């Protein structure tokens, strides 16, 4: 599977561990609930750690742990749910998070420009043939009125 990261199309080297799966070696992402439940075990994990957040999750729940987390996935249950835009902004500018923030789920490629402006630097799509068009939308605007993260 390929994704966009830092304006490049690259191979995804993270794997998704669902709540009822055993942890496995390598770079893995887990849900916030799993993170809270198995945190001690996860901190000794062999490989990098990622946490997946839903729009209804609060950033404050991982604020203390951010230095342990190298990937935060912000999931879109629907492209109209704009909470992840604020979550990304909060992670970058309030919590100074510097790891990867990745958009996943049902968002649309036409949102990439705004998503990158609030600090999301990686994008996963169901249809990887859309990646080149998606990448090109990052250049839609050369000017803007607001300070941005990127």
């Amino acid at each position, binding site marked *: 599977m390929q994704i966009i990261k830092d304006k490049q199309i690259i191979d995804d080297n993270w794997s998704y561990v669902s709540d009822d799966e055993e942890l496995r070696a390598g770079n893995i992402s887990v849900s916030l609930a799993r993170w809270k439940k198995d945190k001690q075990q996860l901190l000794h994990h062999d490989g990098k750690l990622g946490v997946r957040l839903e729009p209804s999750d609060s950033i404050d729940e991982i604020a203390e742990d951010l230095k342990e987390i190298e990937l935060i996935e912000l999931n879109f249950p629907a492209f*109209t*749910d*704009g909470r992840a*835009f604020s979550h990304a902004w909060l992670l970058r500018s309030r919590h100074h998070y510097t790891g990867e923030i990745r958009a996943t789920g049902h968002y*649309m490629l036409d949102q990439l420009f*705004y998503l990158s402006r609030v600090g999301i630097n990686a994008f996963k799509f169901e249809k990887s043939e859309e990646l080149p068009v998606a990448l090109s939308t990052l250049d839609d605007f050369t000017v*803007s009125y607001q300070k941005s993260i990127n």
Partner: protein
Amino acid sequence: MYQYNEDDQTLIEERVAQFRRQTERFLKGEISDDQFRALRLMNGVYIQTHAPMLRIAGPYGLLASRQFRKLAHIARKYDKGYCHFTTRQNIQFNWPQLEKIPDILEELASVQMHAIQTSGNCLRNTTSDHLAGVCKDEIEDPRPYCEIIRQWTTLHPEFAYLPRKFKIAVSGALLDRAATQFHDIGLHLVKNDAGETGFQVLVGGGLGRTPIIGQIIRPYLEKKHLLSYLEAIVRIYNLYGRRDNKYKARIKILVKETGLEEFTRLVENEWQLIKDNLELSPDRINAIKAQFTPPAYDSTSAEDTSFAQRQLENQAFATWVKHNTVDHRVPGYRIVFLSLKAQDSPPGDMTDTQLDAVADLADQYSYGQIRSTHRQNLVFADVKQADLFSLWQKLETLKLATPNIGTVTDMICCPGLDFCSLANAGSIGIAKEINEALDNMDYIHDIGDVKINMSGCMNGCAHQSVGHIGILGVDKKGAEWYQLTLGGSSENEAAIGERLGPAVAKDQVTKAVTTILDVYIKQRLDDESFLDTVKRVGITPFREEVYADN
């Protein structure tokens, strides 16, 4: 007025190019209907009963003559020769073709206009007082702040997918002519005890299905904190506003369900964390203010005596002056309203010929600027009194001089069943009928200030709930019926109208309205206004007469 710099221009051109690519991808089937819907709405494009509808931003209601000429051109080339001025100072075209919309937007961009964020669940066009900068009761001109807000809201990356639409209005005068108490955020320029000006901030007002009057969240905000405070409110809304039910998604419901105190605490906490990073510098404020400096008024214009003379000689002119012009803060000038409520045309509509002619008149008489009002009329803000007579004659021939500003026939009316797919009932036809029944100008002037607002459904585009007389189209087993309310107001003493009684049938609406006016005439004391009379005597005398036959 504000002139775009290079960056402003680049931004709207890049936006047109982006929407052109999106439209092409949609027409090729590469974007789903749902997704394209969100994208087109944020570019002002609705799909309506007959065709797409395009809503163009009139930034805080201020337009230049060359922009009017462009609208005339678009009306001719892409539409059926007319356009519509809305209650939020915007302009709508009812008949453009989807494929042509990118071309229309490109034409608009050539005169510093756009349709960005005129619909959709995002930060909308900021509205203001149509008498800003020229009225006598002003604390400070609100337009520079509107422009600062316009720029901040435009393509704001964090707030493009809010739970619901979000509207901001700014007023700088003692009398609130911008309905700020019925906006998601209302801003009032006020003076503090030290004599400095800042903003009183209201939150959670709105019309539509659940009309609510906005509440004060901060009595005084220093100007430099304007954007950080707005950002704090909108961020809290974006994070906590309801997304499960679109009828409960506006910020007014969040404020109501959270309680003003708790909501305020959330906003203030957020604001403390961002306020030092988002200050407006005095330089920035002054640079924008410099674009709104008053024109070079002629200091001798008050010496003119022809104006008084003409009024003595010509009764029709005197009547028009009385109803369609108001005092200017500079002696020798008056503010002129152009009525878009002529008897035989739909409220708020203008033809291409009228648009072109108005552009010429604005150049000749009012420094090339035109304002649109939230009651769907136009304003020439700076007319010399000596010029009023010739201007009036020209407006007469254009049918823009009906002396009915602020009277019963100056109705606000939504497109209703004629154009809108959500409508329960027609509204333009009823407006016409009421107009025909009230064709005696002396009677209309005797009745005075009565605001009739009429919407074809609960969405309330015509603000019926704050009309002195509100008329709302409802559906009764497939037939068009109308619910009447009395006593609403969107001005300082904001109020939501009270229901008169059961809905009435279509052929009874005009009679109900004339009956209400008759009751007022019977009940009023001396020169008591309609609204004051309703407040004093209550709704019962009106109810008894309107439903007397039942």
